[in-house]
């Protein structure tokens, strides 16, 4: 099976062989992988270089003291990505990261937003938190009204990128 892996700011194409070896790009890598904490921490030694990798969350990884994102796609997903992958990412959903009170909505449906624009103010943990747009786009939908108390994970705003 072939995988496209993004780890931090690097992209790797890795093919696993039935003998348990790895083809990274066109280089065969003899890696010694040991699971130190089941499902959580791996020790990886490649040519004497020792690394420790801990999984922190959905796509967050700790490696040798640095925290990076990881994204793994297999060859089918990679192939499909040209068509479907893009379309999916064109729709951006802003969800409440925690329960709180939606104090203010700074945008209207149909308005254009730039990356980093404040979308709403959520009061939670005794603080007002401004939630911002991750990408530019157009506000397609405002799902919750100002003054509403929302649960963590509740959909707040939908933005369409193209």
């Amino acid at each position, binding site marked *: 099976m072939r*995988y496209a*892996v993004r*780890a*931090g*700011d*690097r992209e*790797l194409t*890795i093919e*696993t062989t039935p003998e348990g070896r*790895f083809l*990274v790009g066109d280089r065969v*890598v003899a*890696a010694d*992988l040991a*699971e130190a*904490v*089941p*499902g*959580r*921490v*791996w020790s*990886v030694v*490649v040519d004497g*270089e020792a*690394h420790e*990798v*801990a*999984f*922190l*969350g959905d796509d*967050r*990884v*700790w*490696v*040798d*003291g*640095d*925290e*990076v*994102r*990881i994204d*793994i796609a297999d060859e089918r997903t990679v192939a499909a990505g040209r068509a479907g992958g893009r379309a999916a990412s064109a729709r951006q959903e802003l969800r409440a*990261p*925690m*329960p*709180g009170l939606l*104090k203010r909505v700074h945008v209207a449906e149909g308005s254009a937003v730039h990356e980093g624009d404040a979308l709403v103010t959520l*009061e*939670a*943990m*005794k*603080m*007002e*938190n*401004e*939630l*911002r747009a991750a990408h530019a786009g157009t506000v397609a939908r405002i799902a919750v009204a100002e003054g509403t108390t929302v649960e*963590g994970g509740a959909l707040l705003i939908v933005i369409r990128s193209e």
Partner: protein
Amino acid sequence: MRFRKVLVANRGEIALRVIRTCRELGIATATVYSDIDRLSPHVRAADEAYPIGGAAPRDSYLHIERIIAVAKRAGCDAIHPGYGFLSENADFADAVAAAGIAFVGPPGTVQRALGEKTSARRLAAAAGVPVAEGTMEPLRDEADARTVLERVGYPVLLKPAGGGGGKGMRIVRSAAELPAAWRAATGEATTAFGAPALLMERLIEHARHVEVQLLADAHGTVVWLGERDCSIQRRHQKLIEETPGPSVDDALRATLGAAAVTVASAAGYVNAGTVEFLVAPDGAFVFLEMNTRLQVEHPVTELVTGLDLVALQLRVAAGEPLPFGQPEVRRSGAAIELRITAEDPFAGFLPQAGRVDFVRDPSGPGIRLDSGLAVPLTIPTEYDPLLAKLIAWGPDRPAAIARARRAAREMIVAGLPTSLPFHSFVLAEPDFVAGRYDTDYVARHWDHPRTPEITEGAALATALAGLARLRAGPRPFVGDTTPWSRSAREDMLR
């Protein structure tokens, strides 16, 4: 007099901190917990624990009557409030005293004089300590604010008059910004302190936040234990504190120390307290506020002085004199504290809730960890996002920074985002390492992408571990099914 049992009216790392000192002194401890805190570490650590109500602070940790009722029921002779919650609530201090229980902190009268921030400004100014230009009484309304603004000039800081700690502050750089800032600051002041009153101060740009730790006993002795630079802040709240302050020379240190003692003496202060100053780039300083409680960052002072501030608080609260005077205070080396918070530094330090399901504590030479973490532990949205404090000591500032950085990179907290990546960044960032920073540091330096540069080898290791994890499939963590438990269960549960 010595206390037999102390009620620790707090939660998280500070409750554990106080319980630890009590245990070392042979004093029994009781604590309180809200409905969602039954499994919190402080409940397990104390000798006694009592439920006091719902998750919302006003129903539990801020509920004066219930807390005093617990203290009476458990037969406590003192209450330690920690920081936050009721620690600076003058009515609480009064109620504790009225119940015949010792309050570990200054009396209500002192708290009242210093807790209302314009009153504190008047007190400092009257004692001859410089204060920032601005209002010496709470602002009446937005129109009043506009009048003051015209006199003081831009930029100004709009601050809650009812309480400190950096909550609810807003910078106003033009007349157009005032309405929104007024609205936001009023709202947050009400939420945080139950009082909408605001004051206005001329903003000192590129200032450093430098504070002086004090101890005062009931017999008139006031000593200062050195300063802390707490300029590394987000939302006017501290993330990293260190002592000595890298920009503070001996002359400034002595001046700030004397000014802090002047304020405390003028207020008739008793117990541990902190006088906060802003220091301008030219070394000029103004009084900011006095915190009438133990600070989050007190451990850096403990590491360089060798003192236990909680033990000294208890001693003072029991009416004993301080066991030393100013000449006996010794400071040695440098210490730095990292506040490990449940916040996402890649998303504007947005507070995070979630379940911590794996932790690796850092340790080794020069490292102290004051942690409120356990595994597993659900971090709720209702309270402060502080999870743990990593404190490093070294013979000098570079050594303390090197140790803090080494330890921060050892620490692993899984389950929700934390401030750790921010700390690793700062401790290697040239301006911070050179001691060149002020309260704008985070805004100026932290614009950090989620993809820090890692080596090719680290990326490969990450990718391979990711694939291995995917292949391994789900399986139980470190097992709890010892042969004993299995056979015993088979024997007994049929």
